[in-house]
């Protein structure tokens, strides 16, 4: 019994991290139609920026928000300076994001050296708490809570605000959105900033669990891809569901069938791609 409870909580905590990582990836993919392959690098860079702030004695939560803001600015610049020049050429844009990912990874190696470094979580969430007869780290419960708050905030933003309506319109039909006067260019920048901010924030939130090390970007990007393909591009609900499903598959796959962990992880993605190319909740085909 304890096994199932702990592993389910593990799944939810991992799902929470995956949601913070992939929500932005999904929105950018949905609106701009490009798989932003530098998303994993933004996640890692966010973690490194957070690390530096933590080492300077900044409070954990402030460090997380500041890292998110820093990555948002970087994302905005990348969108304005690089991606906009390549507007309409999706493949070129994707390749450009891949190049940026490599540049960021090398810069991180250069600045922070290659040593793996764990981030220290907030003091208030240290230690383990008894949960139904077993012990579970408090910080992971915190991650589940943070992810839920972020999901709620994004849902309110996308469903209840004017800018959210514009995003939804853009995801559904970009040309029509443009025709009715939605400032698509500004929207692109805003969404790219938002997505990058979430990646940067996610890196810091994940830091106490994953640590930060060269290669973190490449470890996380495929997971974001799987989540988004499974859940459906550009759909917030899809990102929530995809994250939770992948969290459970990843955790239980590793626990029960460790030899087949990767098969179990990627098989659902392949099946969804074949049977339902839009993903479970998606509105546009990937």
């Amino acid at each position: 019994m304890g096994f199932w409870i702990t592993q389910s909580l593990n799944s939810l905590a991992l799902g929470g991290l995956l949601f913070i990582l992939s929500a932005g990836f999904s929105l950018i993919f949905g609106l701009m139609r490009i798989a932003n392959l530098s998303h994993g690098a933004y996640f890692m860079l966010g973690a490194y920026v957070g690390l530096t702030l933590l080492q300077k004695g900044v409070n954990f939560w402030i460090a997380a928000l500041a890292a998110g803001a820093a990555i948002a600015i970087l994302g905005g610049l990348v969108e304005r300076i690089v991606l906009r020049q390549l507007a309409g050429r999706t493949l070129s844009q994707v390749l450009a994001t891949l190049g940026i990912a490599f540049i960021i990874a090398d810069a991180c190696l250069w600045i922070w050296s290659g040593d793996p470094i764990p981030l220290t979580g907030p003091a208030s969430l240290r230690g383990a708490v008894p949960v139904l007869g077993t012990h579970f780290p408090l910080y992971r419960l915190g991650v589940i809570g943070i992810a839920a708050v972020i999901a709620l905030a994004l849902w309110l933003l996308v469903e209840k605000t004017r800018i959210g309506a514009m995003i939804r319109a853009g995801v559904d039909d970009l040309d029509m959105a443009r025709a009715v006067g939605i400032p698509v260019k500004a929207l692109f920048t805003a969404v790219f900033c938002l997505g990058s901010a979430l990646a940067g924030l996610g890196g810091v939130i994940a830091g106490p669990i994953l640590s930060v090390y060269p290669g973190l970007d490449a470890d996380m990007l495929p997971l974001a891809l799987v989540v988004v393909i499974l859940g459906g591009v550009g759909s917030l609900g899809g990102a929530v569901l995809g994250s939770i499903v992948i969290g459970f598959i990843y955790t239980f796959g590793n626990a029960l069938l460790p030899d087949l962990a990767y098969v179990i992880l990627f098989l659902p993605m392949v099946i969804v791609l074949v049977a339902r190319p839009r993903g479970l909740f998606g509105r546009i085909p990937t």
Partner: protein
Amino acid sequence: MIKRLISRALSGVLASLALALSTAATAQNEPIRVGFLTVKSGALAAGGRQMEEGLALFLKERKNTIAGRKVELFTADTAGQPAVTKTKAQELVERDKVQVIIGPLAAFEALAIDDYIRQAKVPIISPSAAAEDLTQRKPNPWFVRAVGTSAQPMHPLGEYAAKTLGYKRVVTVGDDFAFGHEGVAGFQRAFEDNGGKVVQKLWSPLNVADYGTYISQIDAKADAVLIAFAGANGPRFLKQYREYGVKLPVIASMTSVDEGVLKNMGDEALGVISSGWYTAGIDSAVNKNFVHAVNQEYKADPGYYTVGAYGAALMLEEALKKVNGKIEDKDAFMKALRSAAVTNDPRGVVRLDDYGNPIMNVYIRKVERSRDGKLVNAVVKTYGGVSQFWSYDPKQFLASPVYSRDYPPAKNLE
């Protein structure tokens, strides 16, 4: 007439003799060309940097001269990728004409260039790659190792865990790749031969995102957990292990709590008992000088990679001295390299066995806080002259399969 002929012949002989002597002299004056395969980019870059530091320190101490000859170093970045490693090894040998190679870092890189090394017949000293069979069932005549095999320090740890620590039932968690498999296998064999039982074996993928899955499976009624991780994974695992509030003591492979990662760890590492052929805490004059020099130059303690590269350079020096710097005579040099016995190594005396693998001390270490608050691996016991075959007969050892995920078979799983 005859006189003139004789004198002409004589002068010819003299001339050719002089020519031969002068080429020999130039060869002796020319620098020795040393190739160095390291990793400057990608996930393994931290280890690569430490190897570079070890080698750079050595060359600085020797003022770039070994056995009376200048050294010219050619450094190549393999990015930790086997295919790149092969290209770089070829470049070093064919373009830069190196006479000996120090490197590469990872075992899969060493395996990738194994065929090429045989074919190019270039001596190579491994400063890090620990795959068992490189000096066991598939020895390469041109390959020697400055460090030990994956399982070499794990055999003594197995005995120590059973005999001294008195553990009966141990859970193992390791990286799911050859280095982890071999390390756990060596521990299991010696531990079970001394009456212990490995009751649970867990393997996590190298780039696993989350160790929570594995930590929550650990049998809470076992006596201890053995971890066998490399790179970032040791610290990542230990951090999460403590967060789950698991109380079992942790014993570990050398790289899990290596000085290279220990400097960024916190209380989660305290009390971990591990086993390795080096620790910055070895109490000898040679090592104290070495640690002091590394501290001065790089503001960090030397660990696995630093001492590996430094030890490889010492081994090269020892062999070169024996052949008076004549690295051009490949066979003599290789023979000298294989019979090298290094006495000024920070690890203690290091000599090679018949397979080109060191016989050396293995230290049981415990992570403690030093007086200045730094985490250190303090020596708690020294096993002298440990070979890769431990107490087993080499012939029988080599007749059984190489250590792996499933060998020796786990008969005591619960």
